[in-house]
């Protein structure tokens, strides 16, 4: 039995290696993707172009402009004198934020009888960027205002002194957050796709019938199809894990052994699911369509782009059945927080149940479908 499965695994790997371009792509692209995405999300939202409509032309308005430019988030790219120019720059997307300093701003400030308005206009087409740039600009104006008040001898009430301590990722490095997530995500993507196409391809090309007339048992056929997918996914994981640690210096605070063990559990769940999709599709195209929709669903439910607790209750309940969601929590908690089984047992248990359940369902329905 071991021999028969071994032979099938060797056949699968040989077949995989024959399409050089595809094999190279599957082995290299995930690592490249990790590096590229890590580069892209290194600093979050920075240096967003700002247009300042300065109708005052005073020393103070110039000072405010310099303060805006000195933030990490904003970059004063344009100074204009007419509202039409401001509108055009926002329309064309050349500026993402506009700051309007009204005429007479400095003159009326020196009287300081009533608060002087500064208008901040964000391009609302991207709400994430809009809220970040808006708060950055408001922060600058508030500090500017506080400095002025201090200069006038007005003391601002400040009776709560915040001491902020940041745990697990003290520099709030975005990479330390996104790389473990990408690591889990890319591993997932490769494993599922490789597993899902295995049977569908044989069926479409008519070679499945040939396999079925060999002495291979159904369960052996399934294992023989599953193990190569597991191996390819596992190798991809190891390569990207090494890159995360060596190139991007993501901390590894928890136990590597635990991470590997839980990764294996996760891969079993994904391979089972992939084989199931593979068995219910008649053509590769259909399998691809299933994988694609599955990937879209998983991306949205896994808690990476949108935190799970922001989802409506029904969708939160559904997300419990998505292995990727548990796995991403595991990768992140082990690597950054140094969590062990004491904290992660609910996720580990969920993953174990899901991989067991999916494995059994896949075995049964694939075997039935092959009749």
């Amino acid at each position, binding site marked *: 039995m071991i021999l028969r499965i071994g032979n099938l695994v060797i056949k699968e790997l040989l077949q995989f290696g024959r399409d050089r371009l595809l094999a190279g792509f599957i082995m290299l692209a995930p690592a490249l993707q990790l590096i590229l995405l890590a580069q892209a*999300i*290194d600093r979050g939202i920075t240096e967003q172009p700002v247009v300042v409509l300065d109708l005052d032309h005073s020393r103070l308005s110039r000072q405010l402009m310099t303060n805006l430019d000195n933030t990490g988030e904003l970059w004063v790219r344009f100074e204009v004198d007419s509202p039409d120019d401001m509108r055009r720059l926002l329309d064309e997307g050349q500026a993402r934020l506009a700051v309007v300093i009204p005429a007479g701003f400095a003159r009326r400030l020196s009287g300081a009888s009533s608060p002087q308005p500064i208008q901040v206009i964000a391009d609302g087409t991207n709400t994430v960027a809009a809220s970040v740039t808006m708060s950055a600009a408001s922060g600058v*104006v508030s500090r500017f205002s506080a400095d002025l008040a201090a200069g006038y001898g007005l003391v601002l009430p400040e009776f*709560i*002194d915040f001491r902020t301590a940041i745990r*697990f990722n003290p520099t709030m490095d975005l990479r330390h957050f996104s790389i473990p997530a990408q690591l889990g995500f890319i591993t997932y993507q490769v494993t599922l*796709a490789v597993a899902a196409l295995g049977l569908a391809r044989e069926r479409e090309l008519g070679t499945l019938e040939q396999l079925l007339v060999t002495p291979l048992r159904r369960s052996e056929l399934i294992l023989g199809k599953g193990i190569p997918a597991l191996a390819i996914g596992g190798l991809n994981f190891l390569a990207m894990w090494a890159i995360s640690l060596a190139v991007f210096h993501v901390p590894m605070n928890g136990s590597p052994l635990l991470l590997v063990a839980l990764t294996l559990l996760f891969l079993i769940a994904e391979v089972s699911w992939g084989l199931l999709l593979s068995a219910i599709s008649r053509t590769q195209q259909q399998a691809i369509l299933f994988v694609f929709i599955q990937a879209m669903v998983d991306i949205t439910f896994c808690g990476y782009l949108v935190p799970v607790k922001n989802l409506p209750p029904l969708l939160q309940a559904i997300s419990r059945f998505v292995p990727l969601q548990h796995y991403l929590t595991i990768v992140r908690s082990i690597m950054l927080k140094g969590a062990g089984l004491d904290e992660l047992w609910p996720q580990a248990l969920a993953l174990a149940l899901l991989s067991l359940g999916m494995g059994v369902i896949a075995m049964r329905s694939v075997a039935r479908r092959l009749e």
Partner: protein
Amino acid sequence: MSLRRLIAIVRKELRHIVREPRNLFLVTVSPAFLLLLLANIFSFEVRQFNLAVLDLDQTPLSRHYLASLASDGDLVLAYSVASYAEIEPLLVKGEADAALVIPSGFAATVYSGQAAQVQAIIDGTDPFAGTQAISALTARSGVFVAGTEATGLRSGEQPVEVHRQAWYNAGLESTVSMVPGLLAIVLIMPTMALALALTREKETGTLEGLFATPVVGAEYLLGKLLAYIAAGLVSAVLALLVAVLWFRVPFRGSLAVYLLLAADYFLACMGATVVIANLVRSQQAAMFIVLIIFVVPSFFLAGLISPVSTGALASQLASFALPATHFVEISRMVCLKGLSLGQMIRPALILLGMGLGALAVGLFTFRKKVA
């Protein structure tokens, strides 16, 4: 190259698309379907933070302060703990996003006219969430300061005040911002269908049959491309209907301009796909490459959630090379800003250049030969 034969190919392809329900679904309906699925999940408005609170003061003022923090629902006082030791496990498990420690003597210090220290411990694992938690805490504390000030504790006036505004999406609703952006991603599906159609003919051997006819390579490729662009436009209309009727996204531009630029976008994506399909032999390989080159990076690099990075050159180049980056921009410009074609000429020409360039390479590398 003959127009008659080209038209014959286009008609043959359209019939292929319409005849097979799965194909028809993939090309025309799947973008609208995916949009429905994705947009519901991506439209997150508020982000709630669970706080673990250690109140060592236990005075009316400290309770009043905590209540004021929780008053607008962003911050939830999820756990009340009695010692420092209880904070750590809550943060490691991710059950609390931040912890707040109010020292004993808090009220006494405030009433004596000094600043009382409050310690905030933030989970920095997710820097976006961490930063938001810090600003939510500071903002709510600011309101508390202002509130007590009204009771006569302190007085003071801000010399400058900020007036905030968002254009094109006045309520900063994330659905309004996300749905036009997501259109660029879901409209990759017709390209995926073309990639599969081109490689399927190779795999099943029907390409050989076609080569026995007088059809030349350019007619074959252009015919397929035109048929899939036409089908893609149908899918764009369906997806746009979902966006406008279901998600209530304003549509301020012209439909004709939108469809023209959508065709431009399809040309850029499909041109690149023709090159890919020339290089690979199987549908499996084509799907992988489309998934890894177009779909996944488009979620992260095309400016859908975070704006296009202004940091590393490599990621700026990658964003620029992704057709979706330009169509995310265009889609938001037409829907939300209602711009004319002339105002969007830059992204439109970039896509056209990409499409024609890729198509030229595709025609050049296409070999009308039997493998």
